[in-house]
């Protein structure tokens, strides 16, 4: 099972009629069990790339071969829950076959047990993001896309959720693609890091991380971040 991406160009017509190029060349491949992290300055076209990968946008030049019959799950930048369905219904609608014990385990890890019957409008943003994560993992995907799942959360909560994502990613073999602008998240979660240029996005550099996720100490993370900083100045 393998994901191959070769987007040569993607442009759209803006409201004032001008043609704008968003992506000008991104190509990489991911294996099953691998976590790819895409890092780039904000507004560089990362989300556009994810929409193409998720099959939501077919208007581009290039090729994306998603693994045949792979189950897809995505955590969008916003939680995108159905406001008129309870937390549990939201998850069961996306993952109708999820077993009760599996669901209970996911709820346990993400500390959502007490919120099963709440409506999304009753949740804080942090909780709603956790529900979106729970939904993605309940699907038991073969291909998981995470679009800045930790943005706009406070550091402590982001760190905890990052641990939980690492745990869940380790719990089953799948292709994971994470988009973030936090180098910390990238280095702690990724197996390979893809650095993108400012818009129009171009793949600048691919950096593999050889140390297994569980063994990355704060020092290792700092060292890798220093390496990355030397590679590219346009990424903060």
């Amino acid at each position: 099972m393998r994901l191959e991406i070769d987007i040569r160009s993607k442009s759209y017509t803006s409201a004032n009629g001008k043609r704008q190029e968003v992506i000008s060349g991104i190509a990489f491949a991911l294996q099953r069990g691998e976590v790819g992290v895409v890092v780039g300055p904000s507004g560089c076209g990362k989300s556009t790339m994810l929409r193409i990968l998720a099959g939501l946008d077919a208007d581009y030049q290039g090729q994306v071969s998603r693994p045949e019959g792979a189950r897809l799950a995505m955590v969008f930048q916003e939680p995108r829950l159905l406001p008129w369905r309870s937390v549990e219904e939201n998850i069961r609608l996306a993952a109708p076959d999820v077993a009760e014990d599996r669901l209970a385990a996911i709820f346990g890890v993400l500390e959502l047990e007490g919120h099963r019957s709440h409506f999304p409008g009753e949740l804080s943003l942090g909780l709603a993001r956790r529900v979106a994560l729970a939904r993605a993992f309940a699907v038991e995907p073969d291909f998981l896309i995470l679009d800045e799942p930790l943005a706009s959360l406070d550091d402590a909560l982001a760190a905890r959720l990052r641990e939980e994502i690492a745990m869940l990613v380790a719990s089953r073999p799948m292709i994971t693609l994470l988009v973030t602008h936090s180098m910390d998240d990238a280095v702690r979660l990724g197996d390979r890091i893809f650095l993108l240029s400012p818009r129009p996005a171009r793949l600048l550099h691919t950096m593999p991380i050889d140390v297994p996720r569980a063994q990355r100490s704060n020092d290792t993370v700092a060292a890798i971040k220093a390496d990355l900083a030397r590679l590219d100045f346009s990424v903060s």
Partner: protein
Amino acid sequence: MLRLLSFALLLATWWIAAAVAGSTKLPLPSAVLAAAITEAQSGALFLHLGATLARVTLAFTLSMALGSALGYLMGRSRLANRLGDPWLILLLNLPALVVIVLAYIWAGLTEVAAIAAIAINKLPTAVVTLREGARALDPSLDEMAKVFAFPRGRILRHVLLPQLAPYIAAAARSGLSLVWKIVLVAELLGRPNGIGFEIGVAFQLFDIPLLLAYSLSFAAVVLVIEAAIVQPFEQRASRWRLRAA
């Protein structure tokens, strides 16, 4: 409680107005009640109420189903909107009387003609309301449903209908009042039974208590339908909102 008070006030105003105007122009509430009881005892009231209600139900269901489908299509597809828009404007501005008279001329004084004419009158408002609803659908939820591969039925029931529910309720409410107004005209012009027919008879005999007895009986039925069906549906559809508008 407040509703009862408001109702009592209306009744009192009626009583005083009747006393001032004289019973030939505006009969006392008691006279109207007596007329209603006589009609109810002979069974005529229920027969005519039933006939009108059946027409309202059929025409309402027909126009809501068709109007919702067309409105959704026109809100989602630019092509459908372009094709349908001239027709919609024509229908919206066509007087109810024209539709009814033409239907009776073309299809004869039949039940089908009456129901079709009522449905056609209500159809464009349902289309317009549902088109707005379809335009207001959240594209980010469409994408979510697509990514998680929701089947069609699940999208309809859990993604689309909850978003359209307030629009459907609004179309139902305004549509019901429109249908109730038009059904009487259709009955007056070409049906041998129904509230509209009876009101025509009462008008020719100048029997104001009879006229009011039939009108108010039907108004009461409409109120019951509103309170028992339309409002609970709206409340259920919006229970997920923390504070309903």
